[in-house]
């Protein structure tokens, strides 16, 4: 502790160089934390739902629909305790530049299926009563400046025309990975407008016991295997995970970029340390003359490197942790519940530690091994 003055004085030798080095480390770790968080967030969304809910889609592809008649047959299967369905609507609001999910659902069963949607009771009742009502995620209030009771008009893309709804209710998801920016409306209104009833984009099937999931999924798929529309059923978790795998290589790309950047910064820091150490050979010789041991000088230089690395880490990691919630970042809806996880902070800290060791090691060793007399001769 008594050497603190010496360490600080040395860091203050070239304030600009120290500040720039710390900022480089901070930037590298901010980037690292951000990129890693994309991966962790996707992994988290893949954890959503547990195995209590199954999702049944058209086996040919998710862009194809299923007949509504399937509903009753699925409900009749043993182990099925609840059923709902939804239809992807794909409408746009305003200039269409801000994407948000919107779909038509069988409202009552849907809300029962998702207790994670927290809705004030009076709003829930209003939505269920209103045929042209809409339930929106909390984020949409802020994003579009909508208010409860207001009419909003979406432009249909798959189902053309102008579709007007009344915002009756706002939901807050108890699990942030569920996303808070969807708009949901009644299938009755949907059926009416498109003129043909009887289609379901996907079914959500609630089962009694997660352990029965594979068996029930197979029963459903077997039932429709030879029908006009074969089905593919899996747990909601698998369903979400399949979206995450579409990001597939993007995750790898993020990691690679992250690593490359961190490595580049390492070189920068190491270089700064070495430059600084080289300037000080004379002083190091003097300190050794005064009686500072090799080991002590080694430690002092490592501490200097460490101080810069750790300050940079605190700024970068801490900055990332605070920044994203502050701007409510959710990757335009594709990264719901985006946050810098504790594991990212830990790994980031280890990276910073590694940075410190790597950048400080060579200068510290050089200082420790500096031959006094030769170094003094250079000074005088």
């Amino acid at each position, binding site marked *: 502790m*008594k050497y603190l003055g*010496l360490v600080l004085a040395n860091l*203050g030798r070239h304030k600009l160089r120290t500040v720039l080095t710390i900022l480089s480390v901070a930037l590298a770790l901010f980037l690292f934390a951000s990129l890693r968080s994309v991966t962790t967030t996707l992994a988290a969304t893949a954890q959503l739902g547990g195995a209590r809910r199954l999702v049944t889609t058209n086996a040919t592809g998710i862009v194809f629909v299923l007949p509504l008649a399937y509903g009753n047959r699925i409900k009749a299967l043993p182990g099925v305790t609840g059923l709902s369905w939804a239809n992807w609507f794909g409408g746009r609001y305003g200039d269409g530049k801000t994407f948000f999910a919107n779909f038509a659902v069988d409202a009552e069963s849907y809300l029962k299926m998702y207790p994670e949607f927290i809705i004030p009771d009076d709003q829930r009742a209003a939505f269920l009563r209103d045929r042209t009502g809409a339930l929106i995620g909390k984020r949409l209030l802020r994003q579009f400046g909508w208010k409860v009771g207001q009419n909003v008009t979406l432009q249909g893309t798959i189902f053309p025309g102008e579709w007007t709804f009344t915002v009756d209710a706002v939901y807050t998801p108890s699990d942030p990975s569920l996303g808070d920016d969807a708009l949901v409306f009644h299938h009755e209104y949907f059926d009416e407008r498109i003129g043909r009833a009887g289609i379901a984009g996907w079914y959500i099937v609630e089962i009694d016991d997660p352990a029965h999931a594979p068996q029930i999924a197979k029963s459903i798929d077997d039932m429709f295997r030879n029908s006009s529309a074969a089905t593919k059923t899996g747990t909601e978790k698998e369903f979400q995970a399949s979206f995450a795998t579409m990001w597939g290589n993007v995750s790898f790309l993020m990691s690679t970029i992250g690593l490359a950047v961190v490595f580049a910064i390492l070189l920068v820091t190491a270089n700064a340390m070495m430059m600084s150490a080289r300037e000080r050979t004379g002083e190091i010789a003097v300190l050794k*003359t*005064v009686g*500072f*041991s090799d080991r*002590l000088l080694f430690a002092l230089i490592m501490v200097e490197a460490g101080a810069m690395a750790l300050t940079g880490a605190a700024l970068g990691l801490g900055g990332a942790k605070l920044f994203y919630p502050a701007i409510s970042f959710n990757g335009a809806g594709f990264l719901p519940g985006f946050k810098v996880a504790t594991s990212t902070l830990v790994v980031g800290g280890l990276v910073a530690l590694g940075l410190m060791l790597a950048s400080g090691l060579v200068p510290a060793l050089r200082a420790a091994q500096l031959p006094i007399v030769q170094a003094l001769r250079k000074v005088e």
Partner: protein
Amino acid sequence: MALVEIRDVYKSFQRDTQKIDVFTGLTLDIEAGSFTALMGPSGSGKSTLLNLIAGLDKPTRGSVTVGGAQVSAMSASQLAAWRASNIGFVFQSFNLLPVLTAYQNVELPLLLTRLSSRERTERVKLALDVVGLADRADHYPRQLSGGQEQRTAIARAIVADPTVMLLDEPTGQLDAKSSQEVLALLQRLNNEFSKTIVIVTHDAHAAERAKTTLHLEKGDLIEKRAAAGVR
């Protein structure tokens, strides 16, 4: 027993392919409480001798004993610890750490001891007082004149109460007035505080202030002359 005993010391350097012999069997004593000036032409080994006494370098053969400790036989880390409490070194080019204040520079040797913060402060203040720079404690070396810097260096050299003070051309980079101040200080340290001082110098004035002068030429002690009278 003399404070510093040099016995049959040989020292040679390898410069590229050439082997240069600095000392070939040098023997001399330095008594405790003495003020000795080492003079001689360049290359005569004056600075090397100083380094040997300080334990900064090892003789090729022979022994160097300071205050009973066989410096020539100690390991590097032992020497570092030993130097901290036994040697006060002053360089021609002052060699203060530019990032530290005068106070912090003087405090450096004390960081290596077990003294508490308060005890360190006391000693630093005392040392700065003795050299007459108590009011400049918070100044950085760049804010001090040459003479003041050297006096700070001297304060750093005495703060740990070393056994012997070694000074390599202490007035080499100072003007006449500052040189006088520094030499007067050294005399005071020797007379009032009984410090053993060895200075390497070209300056005849400095040699006059010393009590004993040793002449080295090509590694050999030519003559030892005691100063006429004692001031």
